[in-house]
């Protein structure tokens, strides 16, 4: 089961209060923030790097840096979009640092037979494979919106795009899914 940020986020409002405590050096508030977001951020990183170890490292490094900079930490937008943005940057850096590491899903997506995988249990996998074939930006938009339940506005903020551009990427993803997931 993949953890999503939205589920956690709606239960626990009060990120901003937590942030204020962290700025004042409250290590328990920091641990709370970490535990609240560790899994969804890990999932996001995993989507980029395709490795458990690397995804864990990316999230760890993000929080190590956050704590180091807690006093000067400026959040533009919300805590959620800030964290996603940071974990995305960290993931892209990790990929750049190790060019040999080809994300698992990128390899898998070359496998044939997507159209045949229409059993309900396989739908998620089929969608994910189609998604890995989308252009990079389009794929990122789709994952953040559908897998991580960020709104269009939040996705726009994380990826530094306009909401209109997010809409166009989602339309593109919809076209691809409609064309490739055939009727049973």
């Amino acid at each position, binding site marked *: 089961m993949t953890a999503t940020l939205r589920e956690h986020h709606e239960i626990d409002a009060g990120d901003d209060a937590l942030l204020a405590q962290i700025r004042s050096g409250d290590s328990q508030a*920091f641990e709370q923030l970490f535990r609240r977001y560790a899994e969804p951020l890990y999932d996001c990183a995993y989507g980029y790097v395709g490795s458990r170890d690397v995804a864990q490292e990316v999230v760890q490094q993000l929080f190590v840096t956050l704590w180091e900079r807690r006093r000067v930490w400026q959040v533009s937008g919300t805590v959620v979009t800030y964290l996603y943005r940071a974990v995305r940057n960290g993931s892209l850096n990790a990929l750049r640092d190790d060019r040999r590491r080809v994300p698992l899903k990128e390899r898998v997506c070359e496998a044939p037979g997507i159209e045949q995988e229409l059993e309900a249990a396989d739908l998620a*996998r089929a969608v994910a494979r189609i998604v890995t074939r989308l252009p990079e930006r389009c794929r990122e938009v789709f994952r953040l919106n559908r897998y991580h339940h960020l709104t269009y506005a939040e996705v726009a903020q994380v990826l530094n795009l306009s909401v209109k551009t997010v*809409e166009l990427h989602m339309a593109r993803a919809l076209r691809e899914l409609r064309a490739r997931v055939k009727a049973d």
Partner: protein
Amino acid sequence: MIPDDALLARYLAHECTPAEAAAVRQWIAADPDRVRAVERLRATFDAAAPPHQRPDVDAMWAAIRAHHPASLPTIRRRPFPVTLVAAAAVLVVAVLVDRAISRRSATHGAVREIATSTGQRATIDLADGSRVILGPRSRISTPEHFGEGPRDVTLEGEAYFEVRHDSTHPFRVHAAGGVAEDIGTRFVVRAYAGEPALRVVVAEGRVSVTRSGGAPVALGAGQLASFDVAGTASVRAVDTAAYVAFSDGRLVFDGTPLDEVVSELGRWYDLDIRLAAPAFADHHISASFTGLAEDDVLGAVAAAAGLRYTRQGRTVTFSRARGIP
């Protein structure tokens, strides 16, 4: 109206206005094929991410903490280990030669007591995951089965606390007739005989301090409360690093009056330090020492105060520098 893909995608992602959603629903309902097609699309849109390996969140937190051992809480469940560390690296030799390190950890009935002597610190990991670093010439008592009920400790001297917050079992430090109660936090309590009766400095979180018969004083991060013998409180903002420094073996003064500085040095280095004139107490010292020999520290403090020091055995006297009237 025929919705384009962008609108359809917004519809499936719940990004439509109510009016748009109504229009799309109307369009779908007009044709059973559309109903099926949209339901299929909705299933692809709502398909969860396929499962992948789960992270080890505890291991991740441990790795993060390892980068910041001083400021991030450690969770230890060992039953009361005690380590003694000398105040400064150079002092280790002096302590070992002059007197064997005495680790006094005694059990009196249901109470455990740990005491440090001159120049020693003790790190105490309590059963509830809280940590105490006891300053030199200090003593702390805790109930034998700590953490099962209210967490009350009694302190003489100085200690730094990193408390695992638990609102059902408040952590209370009793010292010099006052009580400091943690509200989730790191703080220092100081109650040496011969000093202002009680001093509490909060590095993180919040602490409530009550002197018998007085109203509670609420302290936040970066605040210091001192209580005089009469129990009158004064609160001010301070650089907490200076007050917490002793917990990792540093001796830090931040505009500290010279008389307090010398009694502190006396506790760390086991010296009897005197001021030739009471007025010298008005000198304020800001300095930080780590691992220095006692004569280096004495020299630096004297220089900072514009004084000189003379020494006979373990007795040190600060007096006016020669040539200055």
